[in-house]
């Protein structure tokens, strides 16, 4: 085995170790190999002098409490998982459905806010449009009322939509943040 192969093999065996512990270990052995080859040994001889990769990896992992190689499930654990599926799978689906429904409810709330904004726009439209025939009929006071309401609606429409957009964007960002947090915990 040459230096690259050795370091690659060691890196593979140390999979699961925190990144800087892994790098430190590799640096150490890289340095050891470099020192030996500097003294005249060939790469192959230097690697052979270090001993087996298994043993070295075992020693490093042993000295590193709480670092477990990414749970490669044993055959036994896989069997249990499959056998238990009728139990945990429906529960998982139920839990996921509840979370999803709650999420949809929140978005429906946003939808309600949007409909409010739309009704403001409709008021604006209706008020202004209906005011015209009233003026023509001579109903100035009522016409002015309609026009006034319509203009208020028109004025409030833009801010209402802007507010809804902010809330919607905020909700999307919140969702993204929650997802990222969950994913980070998974990979730890």
């Amino acid at each position, binding site marked *: 085995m040459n230096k690259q192969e050795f370091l690659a093999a060691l890196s593979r065996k140390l999979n699961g170790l925190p990144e800087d512990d892994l790098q*430190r*270990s590799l*640096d*150490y*052995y890289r*340095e*050891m190999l*470099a*020192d*030996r080859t*500097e003294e005249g040994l060939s790469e192959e001889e230097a690697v052979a002098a*270090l*001993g087996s990769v298994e*043993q*070295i990896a075992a*020693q*490093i992992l*042993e*000295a590193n409490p709480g670092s477990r190689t990414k749970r490669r499930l044993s055959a036994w654990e896989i069997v249990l998982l499959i056998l238990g599926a009728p139990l945990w799978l429906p529960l998982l689906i139920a839990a996921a459905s509840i979370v999803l429904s709650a999420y949809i409810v929140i978005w429906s709330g946003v939808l309600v806010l949007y409909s409010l904004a739309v009704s403001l726009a409709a008021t604006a439209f209706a008020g202004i449009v209906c005011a015209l025939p009233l003026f023509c009929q001579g109903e100035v006071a009522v016409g002015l009322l309609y026009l006034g309401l319509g203009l208020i609606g028109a004025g409030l429409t833009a801010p209402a939509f802007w507010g809804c957009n902010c809330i919607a964007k905020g909700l999307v960002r919140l969702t993204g943040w929650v997802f990222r947090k969950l994913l980070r915990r998974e990979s730890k």
Partner: protein
Amino acid sequence: MDVQMKRGLLDVCVLAAIKDEASYGYRIIKDMKPYVDISESTLYPILRRLEAARFLTVQSAEHNGRLRKYYHITPLGLARIEAFREEWDELLSVYRFVTREDGKHE
């Protein structure tokens, strides 16, 4: 020899190897060789342990175009060596007593 005892002994050996001047992994092994045989894979956890206990510090320095880690002993490390000396002075007294030539033996 008791595993724990051996581990403690190797720890203090490594400290002694860097006592007078900072050294690097491969040289520590070579310096210890006439007295104690130690492999690279044994040395590595010892160095990590000593660093965690602040008995030594690590600094990278350039050597032949690559970075080499040099281990420097700390005052705490020197105190550890001193404590070891005292422990063993005591042990030697006990040893001398236990193996003394008993003139009054029947």
